[in-house]
């Protein structure tokens, strides 16, 4: 930051078109943007943190019921979705690299694949929701979870009220995660548009980096959601 100020004035002339007036130089703007995103992700962590707190407390209190409820969701789909997200994270990181090294077509392809994978994720998710809906596992008036044995205790049935709490948390957590995915898709559509227009150069590709951070974060949330929601007490 320091030496930039010495050349403070004529810096203005060589402004990159994307450099906002109140920044002295491009590096400062980049640093500000990435720090801003990281802090925003901190906010997001705490946002999901409240849910994780609720989850932990009830899982501890109603372990068996949570196990039974968890068993009713399709772990294979969950695992597939985890893999899908991981692949999308790879393509995101490729996109960033492509932008850094001015590989325009790789950039475009990576962005497109990322979005496709995001859509696949949401599709699988929707399918899961559909199953839950048909099985009357959606909390609310038509919820039913009668006579489902607790894993490891075949003669004991899960308490439907407690299973309902599991499903409530399941839908809220995965629902909020899916909402983040949808927002992410919107973000990436915009990035794709900008990339297609040729806005990004090795000097200026902060939006790609920032968008990538967001996408990776959403991936990390899922990395925790998967075992916590799908894999409680699975073993026979």
């Amino acid at each position: 930051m320091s030496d930039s100020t010495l050349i403070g004035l004529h810096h203005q002339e060589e402004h990159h078109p994307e450099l906002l007036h109140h920044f002295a130089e491009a590096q400062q703007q980049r640093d500000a943007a990435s720090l801003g995103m990281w802090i925003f992700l901190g906010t997001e962590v705490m946002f999901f943190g409240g849910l994780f707190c609720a989850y932990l407390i009830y899982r501890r209190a109603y372990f068996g019921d949570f196990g039974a409820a968890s068993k009713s969701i399709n772990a294979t789909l969950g695992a597939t979705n985890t893999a899908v997200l991981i692949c999308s994270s790879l393509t995101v990181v490729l996109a960033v690299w492509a932008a850094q090294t001015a590989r325009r077509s790789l950039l475009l392809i990576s962005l497109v694949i990322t979005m496709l994978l995001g859509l696949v994720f949401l599709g699988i998710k929707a399918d899961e929701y559909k199953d839950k809906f048909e099985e009357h596992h959606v909390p609310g008036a038509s919820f039913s979870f009668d006579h489902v044995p607790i894993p490891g205790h075949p003669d004991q049935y899960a308490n439907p009220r407690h299973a309902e709490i599991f499903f409530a948390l399941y839908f809220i957590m995965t629902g909020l995660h899916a909402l983040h995915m949808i927002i992410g898709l919107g973000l990436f559509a915009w990035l794709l548009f900008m990339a297609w227009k040729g806005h990004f150069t090795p000097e200026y590709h902060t939006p790609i980096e920032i968008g990538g951070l967001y996408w990776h974060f959403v991936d990390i949330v899922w990395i925790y959601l998967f075992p916590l929601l799908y894999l409680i007490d699975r073993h026979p």
Partner: protein
Amino acid sequence: MFDNFPLWPARASTASGNVDALFIFLLIVSGLMTLLIFTALVYFAARYRYRRGVSAEQIEGSIPLELTWTTIPFLVFLVIFAWGAVVYFKSRTPPRDSTEVYVVAKQWMWKLEHAEGQREINELHVPVGQDVKLIMTSQDVIHSFYVPAFRMKQDVLPGRYTMAWFHATKAGTYHLFCAEYCGTQHSGMIGAIVVMEPAQYEAWMSGGSTGPLSATGEKIFAELGCATCHRTDTQGRGPNLQGVFGKPVLLEDGRTVTADENYIRESILDPGAKIVSGFKPVMPTFQGLVSEEQLNALVAYVKSLSQPVATPTSTAAATQQDNPKAAGSQVQ
């Protein structure tokens, strides 16, 4: 106590003195602190007010001073904390053989039931010089049982029991307030605690009882068919409930819990939550089938099964066997 302009609340329980003592201590400490700071402020403000030609003397700071005013307050704080904790522990730990009163709060009234069977609404009669334990639950939202003269307050939650206790020291009539906001008539959810001399109290007690609460409980126990499984021998499908209360119970999953009021309550409403070791989870839930009052009666009955009112010696023996922690951890 109905003077127009009191400055100190009535003091009518053993806890009052404890709380007041700590309060006075804090008044003194913080009074001194306030005095110190105010004096310094005023003195500096006057002594170093702006004068033409005299400029301020710059002082960077001083590590020794900083350390002093970090550590000394901290030590004072520790004293306050420890004292407060002691008072709190006392107020949360009911003595073992207190008389018991079951409290059910609902929007917007207090329903009280003595273990001996007297029922009251918004009014509680208790004798001077006796430990009274309150076993409280709510039918709807959170309320709070507050008797300023006893310096006693405890939130009353739906879905579980909370406990409180007091030992009244002075006859009189004292305010009972609901201190947790609970809706429209929150400020109308008030009542009176009538502390009576033992003799009067006996007289009061002799009227209007429908028999002890545990007897009511026994009746309900029979009516609901609990007795078909819980028999007094070892042949029942459920465990023998004699002497269960207050003891540690070994569960099927290896954990051990103490059979306190909340445990009994849960066993009736959500039997699947904690399975007693060696038994099958066949007990049906009674959620929705028993009212809070019936539940209290059942709990009182199950408790009575563990109180051999026989000889004084056997009581002492039972007390000794008790898990020493049990009494303390009952108050949740």
